[in-house]
């Protein structure tokens, strides 16, 4: 692999020279050097979905004896919700995150699993302030592509991170709270409140899609400003000099707002309007609702090209959530230490399968979402997996790919890689597709092969 030297014109550099010319369409020169030839019209997006606490062996892994790359007629129990999407997924086995292994640090597989999944790093065992993992793949790509979209990346989650020190045998909670790491020392924790995500993307306040209503509301705001300016002018005539000074201050401030509103009106004509309403200002307690609204937000972000990189932590690593939605009152993490208890194993499988059902919803939505002359499904690379395998270990990790990723993923089959093939090789391949070339990422040994072809 060689480095591509073609210089990319940074959008911010451009704006710096162009002064106030905001809202211009992207110029060709600003699209990442290699990415452009690969994207054929619409940019490639990436979504990494993570679920915690690993899977139960028999319910997920397909026996490795078969040489065939075709999918089995009958899916293992956990994956059954995906059977109707068999042509839209690729089942991957054999990938490993070596950094998650103990390497003499003893127990703490959950903390290591979360922090190593996208970084490949072997996290430092500490619950103090000297956190040390690695830059994560999404953040590496986001940094390289920064400026192409309003937000370089988006981190979503469905479970509040645990604050405080030791979460897993001496590993800081920060390790299990985030899969995204801005730097080796700075976790990039996810936002779990749908409303906060929405407001960040599309601004606070109600979104008014109807231009007529929007115009009317702006007219009302303007008439309020007119009205209070009238009050201020009346007072100004009636007051002595020091009081008048205060009213002058008030009038200056009101005029300041007036000017800003006029500016916004001009921008509004071009502003991207999301395909959804602002979600309520509370965190849904139902897991189905919560994941669905996050998926919807993710797609709204992609469709408005607000960002191209999203990570979604579908509950933090070592999650203790109880899935009351499917009648399970026990803590998920507690159940995975089942000690062979059949009832507990059964509950684990139910939870894994329940989460896969939510993933299936996302596939359906992606396929239905228009994007240019195709669908978001055509443009997006999606991975669904966990940093823990079958028995709190880190090899042969459960992984499903979906979305065509502008041609990167060849779907409707399964791929079994050689033992201990680094997951980082997949990171390299995905970043490459985004137009971010790296020779080596963490413990990668190259770009993961066989993704597009046979």
């Amino acid at each position: 692999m060689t480095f591509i030297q073609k210089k990319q014109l940074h959008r911010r550099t451009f704006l710096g020279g162009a002064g106030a010319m905001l809202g211009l369409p992207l110029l060709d020169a600003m699209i990442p050097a290699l990415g452009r030839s690969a994207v054929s019209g619409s940019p490639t997006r990436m979504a990494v979905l993570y679920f915690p606490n690993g899977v139960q062996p028999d319910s997920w892994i397909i026996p490795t004896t078969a040489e065939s790359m075709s999918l089995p007629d009958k899916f293992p129990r956990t994956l059954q919700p995906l059977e109707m999407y068999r042509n839209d997924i690729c089942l991957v086995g054999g990938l490993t995150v070596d950094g998650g292994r103990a390497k003499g640090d003893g127990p703490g597989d959950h903390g290591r699993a979360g922090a190593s999944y996208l970084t490949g790093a072997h996290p430092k065992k500490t619950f103090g302030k000297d956190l040390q993992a690695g830059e994560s793949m999404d953040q590496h790509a986001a940094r390289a592509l920064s400026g192409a979209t309003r937000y370089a990346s988006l981190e979503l989650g469905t479970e509040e991170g645990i604050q405080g020190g030791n979460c897993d045998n001496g590993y800081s909670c920060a390790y299990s709270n985030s899969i995204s790491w801005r730097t080796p020392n700075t976790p990039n924790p996810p936002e779990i409140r749908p409303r906060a995500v929405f407001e960040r993307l599309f601004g606070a306040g109600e979104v008014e899609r109807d231009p007529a209503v929007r115009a009317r509301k702006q007219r009302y705001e303007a008439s309020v400003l007119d009205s209070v300016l009238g009050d201020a002018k009346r007072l100004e005539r009636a007051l002595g000099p020091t009081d008048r000074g205060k009213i002058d201050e008030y009038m200056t401030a009101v005029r300041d707002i007036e000017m800003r509103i006029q500016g916004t009106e001009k921008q509004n004509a071009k502003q991207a309007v999301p395909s959804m309403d602002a979600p309520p200002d509370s965190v849904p307690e139902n897991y189905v609702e919560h994941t669905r609204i996050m998926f919807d937000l993710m797609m709204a972000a992609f469709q408005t090209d607000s960002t191209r990189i999203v990570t979604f932590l579908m509950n933090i690593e070592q999650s203790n959530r109880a899935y009351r939605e499917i009648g399970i009152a026990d803590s998920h993490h507690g159940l995975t230490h089942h000690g062979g208890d059949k009832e507990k194993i059964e509950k684990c499988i139910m939870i894994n399968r329940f989460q896969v059902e939510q993933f299936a919803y996302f596939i359906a939505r992606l396929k239905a979402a228009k994007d240019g002359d195709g669908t978001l499904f055509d443009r997006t690379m999606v991975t669904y997996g966990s940093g823990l395998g079958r028995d709190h270990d880190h090899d042969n990790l459960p992984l499903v790919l979906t979305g065509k990723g502008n041609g990167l993923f060849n779907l409707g089959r399964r791929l079994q890689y050689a033992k201990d093939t680094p997951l980082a090789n997949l990171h390299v391949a995905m970043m490459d597709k985004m137009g971010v070339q790296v020779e080596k990422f963490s413990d990668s040994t190259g770009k993961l092969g066989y993704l597009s072809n046979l």
Partner: protein
Amino acid sequence: MKHISAEKTRRHLREALVGVVAASACSAGISALLAQSSSVKTQPAAKTAAGSGTTADPFKTSVQPFLSGHCYGCHSGDVPMAGLNLAVFTSGAMAEKKPDVWGKVLDKLKAGKMPPPGQPVPAKAEMTPAMGWMEGFLASVNSGKVFDPGRVTARRLNRVEYDNTIRDLLGVGGHPSKDFPVDDSGYGFDNNGDILSVSPLLMEKYMAAARSISQRAVFGNPFPAKPGNLIRLLNRRSPDADDVLQAGNAGIWLPYSLRGAMYGNWTFPVDAEYEFRLRVANFRGDTSDVVETPEEKEKRAEERRKNFAALRSARQKGLASGAEAPGPTPEQLKARDEAARKAAPPRKLILAVDGSPILTSVVEGNGSYGYSNGELTARVKVKAGEHFLRASFPELADLADPQSNINPDKRRGLFVDYLEIVGPYNASTEPPASYKKLFICGHAPGGHNSQCARIVVSNLMERAWRRPVTQQELAAKLSLVAIVQKDGQSFEEGVRLAAQAILSSPDFLFRIERDPKPVLVTPAAAVTRPAGHYVDDYELASRLSYYLWATMPDDELYTVAKTGKLRQPEVLEAQVRRMLASPKSQNLVDNWASQWLQLRNLGRTKPDPKRFPNVDDELLDAMRRETSLFVTEIVQKDRSLLDFIDAPFTYLNGPLARHYGIAGVDGEEFQRVTLDGERRGGVLTQGSILTVSSYPTRTSPPVRGKWVLENLLGAAPPPPPDNVPALNDSNIGTEISMKERFAQHRRDPSCSPCHNVMDPIGFGLENYDAVGRWRDADGKFPIETTGQLPGGKTFTGSKGLKEILRARSDEFVHNVTVKMFTYALGRGLEHSDDPTVDSIVQSLKARNYKFSSLVLEVVRSKQFQMRSGDAAKNTSTEIAKK
């Protein structure tokens, strides 16, 4: 000089003279206050210096030579320093035109700020006559010849006043001002008209708040259509984590409680049922996380690794062969749980809303945080609005040592991990209470007729603007309703838009007082009547309600104002007494008293958690509450102002009583406690004051001394010079006593003038450590609290200090009066206010210093009831030039 306020003049003279004697750059004011020199009082300086000489101009003989010798160097010429040219005053007649100038000059001289350090110090013989003239002249100005009631600048509502007013006006709560920038304060209070300003950012927040409040008032609070998880309250960033402990920033989100409690306010959006879900973290009876040496730790980790590997391989073999997997049997696990359960006592848990329990439970011991026990839940009906939630283990309030709830790994053994509020269920479909306050014309929603707009909008305007409105003003706001209705939108939406404009208007945001003649003051008129005018009854009602309640007038007060009888003495007094007795007068405690006593600074820098591990946020809150309840009793039970200095009672709960070492007070609830007066009594011995006047790591006698001088005696020493090095405090208590360290300090002549006064006062309080606990020794050195004040008076300990303060009750009461007057008027006091302050102080003595008499005297003063016109110099042409 008919009505010279003798007391005041004497005091100033005393200060002036002692200041000359001290001839230092510092201590004029404070030494005078504490010196026991009665001879000074009889100095006839005033008469000789200020008496209007019949033959010569005393200004020319006494003042001009002094100014020319010590001031003209900087304060003359084309570009005088600070824009002050003193050389223009060539005669007494010219000088008397500018009383403000002489007030300022006198202040600077008295404070020792002028001449500046490095310049020759004026000789006593020069300074005494010059200052004497200024004293005499200012006294004559103040004597009533040219009475000036002062003029407060139009006051913007501060954040507290805004929230209170919105609540009383519309019933909309939830602290809409919480996103507003912090209000600046002037003269010690954040209700100062000159200081409070409107920035574009604040205006934007006002606009957004008015939009949101009008929306909520007309259509109710927004809430999810389907019940959802509304909030998750967490003890986030608690010192449970080592790193946070080091950073010293515990309890950012909710107060941190060593006793595992969780408490705070939350605003419920709608009358409905809500489900409370609470999880307890419970990790007691386990010491496996004890702090070990690195070797021990490594050894244990190695053992664990081996066991883990052995277990895993055995299990894999077992699974492969189809046999039972090895590991602890269910019986063994059960036994382990049982042992952990027994290892710790069961504790009662109570979750209460506004003090009423809605959930009680008993938590047994557990060795693994007990998360598998899941959540405790309760579903109850709650009214819309703000409520106080508290989940706690009441028995833990009486722990002899709260550290017994802390495990070796620094985490609490028992605490409320989180509290979630889920809802709303079966939400009320009634219009919100605010709807009824707004739509008063009695029609059902949607059925309003055309007359309603006028009735509804004029009612809201009158209440929001706190005065009747003109037809023109009303028409302007009604036109907004019309605009909306013309668009085919609802009548309610029209009223909402009008409400938004009414709440964004300067007439709402400012307390405007109108002058009959806004610009001109005619000095000639002052001969027969005061150079000012009475504010109208509506303005007086607002002055009263914002003073005593920090909110708009209620219906009764407004109605009285409407009758035009509010100024009648007996009507006014009845209203004041009614308002003081109302719970709303708590605002006087929370805003006036807490700013006066600097209590708002408590907890801004927290006591060092390493040195004072038992001082958690909850204890700091308890200290605040003690002082608040104490002051509330003085206000509502109309006690003596001298109770602030010393009183035989206070309010304590179990944890605070244990902190003080007072026996017999148990439980979480505060109770009134009678004191024997030995160690505790009065604000000076309350943890809040003792902590706020200390450093995070140790006490500071000068800081406490300064606190007493500044806040109790009104004689703040000047700030230290810029080049003062920090005190070396690293070895205090180990190698050197605090007293000896400061004695070294005071030998420095540039420090001694101030520290000779501040330090002894502070040392008198050394029996209380930096968080208000009693102590007899500091490190290995016994506490020595006997001190000598300049003038030779000695005293011992807090009792001795309080005796001195009581003996100087005149100065204390004078200072309280100044603080109260400043807060009530919303402006800094001027020289022209001195006679009024003095006469209030005099009249209080005759009324046993009753709190209500202070408030009544303030309310009866001309300053409170009147307003002077604006200075004529600042004419409209000048404004136009801007």
